[in-house]
Every structure is written in C-alpha cells, then in structure tokens.
C-alpha cells in the first residue's frame, strides 16, 4: 500500500511539472491556434538558466545567500530568461509567418528547436549537469503521510506548481490581459475591432507560457533529473500529450491532463516496467486523438463550411 502511495506521490510531483508545460502549449494554442513545437526547448533552457544561477550564487554546496533565496532567484532567472527567449522566438520566427500557410510556422518551429538545442550544446557544452539538490536541501526532512515520505523538494515542486497555476487562473479570469487573451483566442479580428492590441497580447501569452516552461525546467532539475540539451524533446512531447488529454485550449484541462499523465506514468513505472514509461504518454495521445479528440475538458470544434 505504501508502495502505491509512493508512486502516487511521484506521479503528482511529475504531474505538476507536466502540467506547467502543458499550460504553455494550451495558452499558445488557445491564442494563436498554433502548436509551438519548440516549447520543450524553453523548458530545457530554463533548467540550464537555473543551474547556472545556482552555481553563480555559490551552489550547490556553498551558497552565498540563504537556500530559500537562492532557489527563489533560480526560479526568477529561469522564468524571466525563458520568458524573454520565448518572446524573442515569437517575434523573429513566428510573427512574420502569421499570415502564411499552416505549415510555415511548424517548419519554423522545427528550425527553432534545432537551433536552440545546438545553441545550448555550443554555449553550455555537452556535459550533463546535475543540480545536486541534496547538498543544499536536507532530503531526509520533509513530511510523512503514514509511512509514505515526501521530501522537501517534492513538496516545493507541487506547491510551486499549484501556486503558479492559481496565479495563471487568476490572471486569465480577473485581469484585463487575461480578458484580452480570451478574446483573441475566440476571434482575433473581433478582438482588434474592440481595441485589443493583438500583438501585445500574443507577446504576453508567449512570455507567460515560456516562463511557466522555465519554471518547470528548474523544478525538473531540483528533482534531480539530468540537465542536457535534449531534455526538452521528450518533456515537450509529454507536455503536449497532457494538454491534449485535458483538452487543448482549456487551462483547467492542461492542469488536469498534466497530473493525470504524471500519475499514470508513475504507476506504470512502478508496477510494470520503467522502460514503458515513455510509451505511456504516446499511447495516451493516440488514444485521445482517436477516441475523444477534444480531450476531457475541451469543447468540440465546429467549423463553418
């Protein structure tokens, strides 16, 4: 029973990370009807940014500031850097193609993906990095539910993810920017005619989506996942699967999908075979697309002929 509990905890924690990535996909798709193939690379960059911030501050062993502050700064840098990068990608690679064919932005995203992966390789080197969280967080502390242990990093990731999601939900539903995003998502031309600056809204959407991806990257690193330039490929694909599962275009859907995927993966890893973990996301994606393409919380698309 406690084994099940442990897997569940793993699943929820990873689910939080997947949910953040899925949110990025859903936000951008909602606003632009475009699937950003390069989204995973922003997650990767976030992980690297976080890592270099950590080492710059003296970590992992000899941080010059209190640990909490260090972690906070890592998140800020990763999210800010990710946001900037995402905005730049939108500006230079996607915006010129806004009125082009449906294929063009996808091809461009492929190019961006390849470019970012290799830029990371060039600038950061091929060495795989590890956050070595154990050196600045006592992994033996943390809480226990019954005999199931949850270490501080895992708590931090889940709480952090939930906080970010709550913040996002508030922003989308309670602020002018959020309203603008929702308007552009429904009808871009009508939004323009109502005085909404579509370009600015898109920029903010990318900034937020990429910032969330950056945060996910840091969380991944803190959870001791290795940081290398290809980590974004699978994370991106899984995040996408989570978004589709929950219903692409739906924010609660992305959150739900992320957690569901994380939990399913953890259970499969724990009870069947670890090697099949990667296949789960793919299987889920195919099943959803075949059986219920709109996902759990998505609304069916009605196209006017």
């Amino acid at each position: 029973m406690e084994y099940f509990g442990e897997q569940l905890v793993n699943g929820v924690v990873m689910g939080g990370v997947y949910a953040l990535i899925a949110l990025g996909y859903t936000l951008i798709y909602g606003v632009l009807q475009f699937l950003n193939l390069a989204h995973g690379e922003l997650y990767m960059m976030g992980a690297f940014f976080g890592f270099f911030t950590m080492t710059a501050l003296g970590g992992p062993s000899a941080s010059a500031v209190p640990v909490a502050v260090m972690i906070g700064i890592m998140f800020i840098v990763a999210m800010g850097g990710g946001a900037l990068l995402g905005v730049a990608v939108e500006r230079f690679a996607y915006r010129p193609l806004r009125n082009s064919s449906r294929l063009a932005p996808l091809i461009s995203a492929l190019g961006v993906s390849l470019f970012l992966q290799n830029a990371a390789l060039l600038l950061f080197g091929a060495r795989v990095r590890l956050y070595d969280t154990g050196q600045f967080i006592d992994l033996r502390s943390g809480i226990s539910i019954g005999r199931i242990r949850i270490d501080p990093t895992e708590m931090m990731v889940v709480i952090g993810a939930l906080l970010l999601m709550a913040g996002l939900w508030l922003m989308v539903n309670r602020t002018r920017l959020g309203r603008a995003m929702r308007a552009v998502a429904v009808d871009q031309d009508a939004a323009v005619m109502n005085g909404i600056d579509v370009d600015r809204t898109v920029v903010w959407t990318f900034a937020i989506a990429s910032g969330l991806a950056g945060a996910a990257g840091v969380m991944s690193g803190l959870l001791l996942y290795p940081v290398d330039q290809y980590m974004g490929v699978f994370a991106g694909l899984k995040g996408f699967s989570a978004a589709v599962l929950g219903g692409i275009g739906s924010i609660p859907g992305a959150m739900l999908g992320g957690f569901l995927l994380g939990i399913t993966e953890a259970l499969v890893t724990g009870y069947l075979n670890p090697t099949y973990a990667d296949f789960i996301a793919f299987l889920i994606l195919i099943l959803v697309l075949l059986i219920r393409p709109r996902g759990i919380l998505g609304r069916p698309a009605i196209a006017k002929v």
Partner: protein
Amino acid sequence: MSTTPEDSRGIGTDEWVAQHGERAQRGTGLYARIGEAWMGLPSLVRWGIPLLLVVLVPFAGSNDYILRIGINLGLFLLLALGLNLVVGYSGLLDLGFIAFYGFGAYAYAALASEQFGLHLPSLLAIVIVVVTTAAFGFTLGLPSRRLTGDYLAIATLFFGQMFVVLMVSSDAVQFPWMDEPMDLTGGANGISNVDQLSVLGFTFDSNLSYYLLLIVLVVLATVATKRIHFSRHGLAWRSLGEDSLAAQHMTIPTVRLKLLAFTLGAGIAGLAGAIFASVQQGVYPSTFELPLLITIYAAIILGGLGSIPGVLLGAAIMTILPELLRFPEYSNWLFLVVLILGTIMYLKSWKLVPAVFAGMIAIGFIANVIFLAIGVPYLTTAEWAKGPLAPVLGSWIFMPEERVLIGNIAFVALVVAVAWMSLLTRRTTIILLPFVLWLAIFTWEVRLMLEPSITRQLLVGALLVVLMATRPQGIFGKPRVEVL
C-alpha cells in the same frame, strides 16, 4: 467585351495583364536570364547533363570518399522523393518519416545478418522490407487520417521518437513463452555484420557498385515521381492539400489518398533503409534521430515543396555542403563566399558593396586594436590559422586564447544582432552591416569552427527559420497563395 486580335501582343491586352504576375516573378537580372536560358533547353538535356556528370564522377579519379558521399546523396534523394510525396503535395506534415527509413534498415538487418541467423537472398529480403515498411506506413496513416496539420505534426514527431526508443530498448525483450529475454535490435549498439546486397550472383562489395545502383534507383524513382505528379493521383493529392473539403466534393477520396501517400512514402523510405543497411553493413539507432529528419525537411523545403527538380537540388545541397564543413579549409572558403554573395545580393547595388566590405575590414582592425589594448591574451597566426586563407585571416582576425568563452559571447551577440536587424529599416541595416559581417566571421573562426557538427545543425535550424520568413516556396517552388 471586345476580343483581342490573335496576333496582337500589345501592352494592355487581357493576356498581357494576366501574365503580369509571372513577369514580376521572373525578374530581369543576370540570374534570371541564365535561368531562362537553362529552362529553354529541351528537358532531356536539362536532366541529362546533371545525370551525365553524376555518372562520370567515379571515373574522375575513383576516390572512395567521394563515392561514399555520392551514396549518401543517392539515399538522401530517395528519401527526399518519398517525403515529397507525403508533404509536398498533400501537405501532410509527417515528422516521423525517418522511422520508416529506420524500420527498413532494421528489417533488412533482421533478415540478412547474424542477428537471427537469417541470410535471405537480397532481392527477397528487399521485397519483404519494402512491403512491410509500406504496411507500417499504412498503420501510421490510419490513426492519422483525421488529424490536421499541427496535431499530425506532433503526433508523428512523437511516433518517430518512440521508434528510436523502441529500437534502443529492445535488446532484452522477455516473451512469455521463452525462457530468456531475446535481443531483437541490438539495443544502443545496433546490429552489425549486415550482409551486403547480392543479386544474381553479383555481390555489391564496393562503394562503386552501390553508387551505380543508387544512380539507377534514383533515376527510376524520379521518372516514376514525375509521372505520378501529373497523374490523377498527383492532382488529387495537390487538391486535397489545397482544400480537402472541396476536393472531397469533387469526387476525390481524401482519406484513401492520404493513406496511399503514407504507404508509398514509407515504402520508398523502406527501400532506402534496406540499401543503407547493406552499404553500412550495420544499423545503429542513433542515425534515425531528429537531426536527420529535420535535414531532410530542410532539403525539400529549400528546394521547393512539390517541385521534383527542387527536391533533388535541395537534397544535393543538404548532403554536400555539410560535408564541406568537415574540412576547415573548405568551410572557411565556403562561409566567406556565401557571406559575400549573400551581402551582394542583399545590397543589390554595386556601389555599396566596396563600402560595406571596406567598413567590415576596418572594423576588424579596430577590434584587434581594442582587444590588444584591453590586454586579451591571444594566439599567433601559426597557432590557429589553417588552409590557403591562413595569412589573410590570421592578420585580420584576433584569435583570443579563451576561444570558447569569448566565442560564446560573440555567438550570442551575433544572434541578437541578426535578429534585431530583421526589425530595422534597410538603411539602418546597411549601416550596421559591416559590424555584423565582421562579427559573423569572428564568431565563425573563433568558435564555430571548433564544432563543425554543432555548427551544421545551427545552420540548418537557422536556415529553416529564415527560409520560412523570406522565401517559403524555396528555390524552385512557386509562391503560394493561402486562404486562411
């Protein structure tokens, strides 16, 4: 409406106005005239000359390395033609296409190596491989038939990734009816000692033999593709790529045709895979990763989606140029030539060219002075410069000792500068051009030259982005009008 006299070609007639678009595209410069002269030649000549050159290559000193490149090119051409069938006409963005190449290679290795102790005759093995890969393509096409652009792209991308993971992790598969796990695919090390092709007693055991075989296959594939292009199927694919719903209303069975495209494309990729396995005499999973897929896409997009000469040219460029990057001497030349040509084409006016280049050279020397003044440790020309351009570059480019660090900074600065320049007016761009050009060469020499394979990927990625933004139809494609 008055009809125009048959022999009147005057300005202002309907025909003249209607052909305005074509004339605007044609252009009047030197390149345009050369292009027109070339297109004026009979088609047999236009295709025959490159073919002749290709056939004569082995006789111009049989350098095995060149033949090897030729073989890679031939395989790439087959893949490009196959992918064109899927993407070029119907717009089905299959980002998992490489999985079929891999499947073909692995299937052939399974049938003709020590892995399972099977050594089937080559022809039989190839037929089996092509048929099973085509079936595999059909199976991927089935769930995909209802997916639209973006979804199809990511779903197939995922599929391609999963294929590699499957190949790598299938070296210890435990079947319930067996005592011990079975090694299906050799895991990360792949399968070695794959048989060479052997047809009717003749064994393909030299690069030359494979080279010639591929010439024949590529020619056959090109002829077949051309015929299909103009056939009812080709038109049906292109119609469904334009407007799937309207196509359905015009008797076109779009679902069936999408499946057919997937199947055919997969079959061709399977054939290429089988030959690849026998040439290499082995098959390794790392070959079939994302970079190869993106390179093939870059090839057909650069050449022009849907255009057969374009696809072939694009494949040629994407195979040969990266090879040149392996040799610092050649790559230096290549980079400088491309930079200079590109600048000249951008400037369009012969008056500006000397000014820009003089400025670039000046900035180079100024930069040297600044570096020296700061006291940056550097390397002497002899220590780093290679190739025929060494003395020139050595005296003009400052080579810091800390190549990686300073090179990285220069790289980031270069990317930022180029991106930013895309937003500026033409005038400001030209003023900044000398600096950016110098920075590009500096970055190239100091940092990028240290990592040819990374540089190659960077260039392909950048190429795709720039291509989509400036000339999405590629070299031979026609500009398309999209209704969104």
